[in-house]
């Protein structure tokens, strides 16, 4: 990720902050020039992953957004190094795969979404 273009948010695992993450996601998606439907899709994806982080019982996460023209990369990392999708339900990954261009889980448990 290009650090000059990255918006990094450290957020406690609390569903009250889900709305803040959706708003941040919408702002980052808007900066990519996405249309309203794509912005909504980005919000769905971010809520989905954030929900899974909350479910896993992990204390918090760092979510990084790297907006570029027509492309958004979102990186999720948990604060305790647990896999981001540890608390995912059976639909989480299929939802992400249906909406994002690519979904990559790293060995260290982080998750990278590329939306184009």
């Amino acid at each position: 990720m290009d650090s000059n273009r990255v918006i990094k948010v450290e957020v406690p695992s609390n569903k009250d902050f889900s709305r803040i993450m959706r708003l941040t996601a919408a702002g980052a998606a808007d900066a990519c020039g996405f249309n309203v439907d794509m912005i909504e899709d980005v919000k769905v994806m971010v809520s989905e992953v954030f929900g899974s982080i909350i479910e896993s019982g992990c204390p918090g996460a760092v979510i990084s957004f790297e907006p570029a023209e027509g492309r958004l990369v979102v990186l999720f990392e948990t604060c305790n190094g647990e896999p981001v999708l540890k608390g995912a339900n059976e639909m989480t990954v299929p939802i992400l795969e249906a909406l994002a261009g690519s979904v990559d889980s790293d060995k260290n448990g982080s998750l990278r979404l590329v939306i184009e």
Partner: protein
Amino acid sequence: MTQTHNDDKLFEEYIRTGNIEIRNLIVEKYYYMAKVLAGKFLNRGVDYDDLLQVASLALVKAAERFKPDMDNKFSTFATPTIIGEIKKYFRDKASLIRMPRKHYELYPSIKNAYDTLTHEMNMAPTPLQIAEATGNSPEEVIEVLEMVRTGNISSLDEEFDEEGYSRMEALGDPDPGFEGIETRDMYERALSLLDENEKRVIIMRYNQGMSQKDIADNFGVSQMYISRLEKKIYSKLRKKLDSN
């Protein structure tokens, strides 16, 4: 909810017998997926009930197509199918022309005022009456109502009169005369940029349709000379016309 061995048996039974009751059992069991996924696409201008209906039909399709011997679980198979159908629904049913956000937000209150006033007065309200009821300006009301009409696209193939003529048939073609005028104008402008010899070459070549060889004979020079001269003329014209 995870897929159990019994679920696999249910799918196998359905594939073997094609019994609709078994398919319905599967659909009932996984109906929660349609509900969850429909809920994820709320606030995009389509009612939850409509989304749930689309998602449910997609779930039925997925149940009919799923084979338990595939590596996937049913939920992994059905989720993209349902999301795909929901997104297709948005593409097909949503207005082809998107209203600006401001108008989109104003529309529900204006539509509501329009319906209420129509009911109260037993006739359609004026933009001014709607504006007074909603606290918007009459211009805004007109703009929003106009935008909504613009969003309803008609097909070019749609018949629009009793004789069955389509809109496509009523469309005119560009008049070739216009292009001719434009070309002639450009041609005359180009000629005015050339010296007498260059002008003669171009007139012979394009007005009189002469070959390079014929022009060369006429000038008493080689065909190669005319070829090079032509290239020089094109380059000169390109530069001058570009700079203009």
